[in-house]
C-alpha cells in the first residue's frame, strides 16, 4: 500500500518538497555544488509564496548554521543544507545544536573534500562529522531522500529526542538525477509531523541561558547527559520509521538487508551505491555465490544490535568505504570491526576503499570486491596481514 502520486523529480527537488510540506519556519543555507538545487528551489518557494518561511541569506556555511542555531533556540522549525567544503566550514557550529539539543534538520549532498578540488560524490564530508552528535541517515534513492527528510523532522523534534538530524543523499547520483517517486498527499505529511514545541526557548517572559560556560566541575556531566540522551534516540527513530511505514507504506530500518536470508557473504554499502550492489548480488548468486547486501540506513547513532543481527550467519563481510580515514583505512570498515569485536571472532571482514571523488563503481566493481575478498580470506587463513585495498586505481 503506497499512497500518493507518481512524479519524476530530481533528488534536490524532492528534498525541497519535503521541507515545504514540513512547513519550515526559517531556512538559512549557502549554495554549494551539489547541494545548490535544494536551496535554490527553497528560495524560489519562499519568493513565490509557496512556503511561508524566513529565508536568511548569509555569507558562509558557518553563518548558515549559526542562523539555524539562533532560530531553533527561538523555537522555529529550521532547515539548512550543504556539502563537502561547505559542511566543513560549518563544522565548528555543528557541535552547538547537538550539545544545546536543538532539532535543526539538515540535508547533505555528499561531496568529496579538497584537494584536489572535487565537486563529485564520496562520503568524506559525512565521515568527518560523525562524532558530533547529529543523527545521520543515508538515502539510497530520491524517494528515500524525501521520506527520510520528513522523518528527520519528526524524530529531531520529538520531546524525547531533541537532537539535530542530517539526511545524506549522494551528490549528483541523487541530487541531480530525476527518478520516479511517490509524492504523498501534503495533508498526510503535515499530519505526520506534529507541531513542535521545545521545552526551552528564548522567551523574555521565561528567561533561560543557553550554551553557558562549562567549567571542569560540570562539563563532563553535560557530556554524559548528552551521550545518554543521544543513545536513547534510536528507539524513537525506529518508532518513527514504523509509523511512517504504517501511514505511507514504505518501511525503513537502520540496517537494510537484501537477499540476506541464506547469505554467507555480505556486501556492506551506504547511500546510492546500494542499488548497483544489488545487481552485483544477483549476478554473483547466478554464479553460485551466496552473497547478500547490507545497507546502513542509520549511521548515527550506530545501530549495533541490528547490525550484529544482520551479520549473525555471515562468514565474510565485504565493506565498501567511500572515504578514507587517513592512516587507518576506511572509517566504516573500522567501525563495523569495532562493533563486532569480541562478538564474532569467526567472521572475516575485508575492507575496500572506492568511489572517491565521483569515481563510479559499476556492477563489476562490486563483483571484483567479493571475489577479491574471497582471495584475501585465504591470505588471512595463511596468517598473512591484509591491507585495505583501493579499487579501480591505475598503476
Amino acid at each position, binding site marked *: 500500500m503506497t499512497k500518493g502520486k507518481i512524479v519524476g523529480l530530481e533528488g534536490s527537488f524532492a528534498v525541497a518538497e519535503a521541507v515545504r510540506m514540513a512547513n519550515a519556519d526559517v531556512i538559512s543555507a549557502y549554495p554549494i555544488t551539489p547541494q545548490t538545487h535544494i536551496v535554490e528551489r527553497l528560495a524560489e518557494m519562499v519568493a513565490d509564496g509557496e512556503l511561508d518561511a524566513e529565508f536568511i541569506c548569509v555569507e558562509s556555511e558557518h553563518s548558515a548554521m549559526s542562523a539555524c542555531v539562533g532560530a531553533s533556540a527561538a523555537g522555529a522549525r529550521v532547515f539548512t543544507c550543504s556539502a563537502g567544503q561547505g559542511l566543513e566550514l560549518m563544522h565548528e557550529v555543528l557541535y552547538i545544536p547537538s550539545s544545546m539539543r536543538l532539532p535543526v534538520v539538515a540535508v547533505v549532498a555528499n561531496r568529496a573534500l579538497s584537494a584536489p578540488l572535487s565537486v563529485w560524490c564520496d562520503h568524506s564530508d559525512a565521515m568527518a562529522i560523525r562524532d558530533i552528535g547529529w543523527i545521520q541517515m543515508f538515502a539510497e534513492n530520491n524517494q528515500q531522500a524525501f521520506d527520510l527528510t520528513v522523518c528527520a523532522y519528526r524524530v529531531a523534534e520529538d520531546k524525547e529526542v531533541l537532537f539535530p538530524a542530517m539526511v545524506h543523499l549522494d551528490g549528483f547520483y541523487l541530487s541531480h538525477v530525476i527518478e520516479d517517486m511517490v509524492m504523498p498527499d501534503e495533508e498526510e505529511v503535515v499530519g505526520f509531523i506534529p507541531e513542535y514545541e521545545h521545552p526551552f526557548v528564548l522567551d523574555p517572559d521565561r528567561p533561560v541561558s543557553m550554551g*553557558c*560556560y562549562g567549567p571542569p566541575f560540570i562539563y563532563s556531566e553535560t557530556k554524559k*547527559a548528552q551521550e545518554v540522551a543521544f543513545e536513547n534516540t534510536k528507539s524513537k527513530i525506529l518508532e518513527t520509521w514504523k509509523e511512517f511505514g504504517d501511514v505511507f507504506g514504505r518501511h525503513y530500518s537502520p540496517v537494510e538487508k537484501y537477499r540476506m536470508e541464506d547469505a554467507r557473504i555480505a556486501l556492506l554499502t551506504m547511500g546510492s551505491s546500494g542499488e548497483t550492489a544489488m545487481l552485483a548480488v544477483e549476478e554473483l548468486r547466478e554464479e553460485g555465490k551466496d552473497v547478500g547486501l547490507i545497507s546502513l540506513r542509520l549511521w548515527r547513532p550506530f545501530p549495533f544490535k541490528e547490525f550484529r543481527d544482520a551479520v549473525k550467519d555471515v562468514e565474510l563481510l565485504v565493506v565498501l568505504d567511500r572515504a578514507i580515514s587517513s592512516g587507518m583505512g576506511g572509517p566504516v570498515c573500522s567501525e563495523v570491526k569495532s562493533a563486532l569485536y569480541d562478538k564474532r571472532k569467526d567472521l572475516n571482514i575485508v575492507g575496500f576503499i572506492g568511489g572517491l571523488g565521483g569515481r563510479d563503481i559499476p556492477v563489476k566493481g562490486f563483483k571484483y570486491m567479493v571475489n577479491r575478498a574471497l582471495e584475501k580470506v585465504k591470505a588471512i587463513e595463511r596468517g598473512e596481514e591484509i591491507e585495505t585495498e583501493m579499487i579501480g586505481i591505475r598503476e
Partner: protein
Amino acid sequence: MGGEKLGWKDLEIGAVVTEPGSASAYKTGDWRSERPVRENEKCIKCGICYIYCPEACIHEDEEGYFESDLYYCKGCGICAHECPRDVIKMVEEVEE
C-alpha cells in the same frame, strides 16, 4: 558556588540554565593571582577603571571613589593599565 554538586541527571535539556542572573554564583575572584590596590589620594574620580573592568566588578563608593569587589575581580590588571593617574597597582596575591 552553585552547580558543583549537580549530577548529570540534574541538568536540564541542553544544559540550559533556568535561573536568571545565576552567573553571579560563579566567583571569578578565584582566578586572581594579583589584586588591584589603590592610592586614592591621586584619584580624580574619572571612572575610567569602572568603565573598562571586564567583570563589571568595580563600584563607586559614597565619596565617589571606586573599589573592586574581590569576589569577582579576576586580577586582569586592565583597570591599572587604563587609569590615567597611576592610582592602581597590581600586587601579587600571597598564600596565607
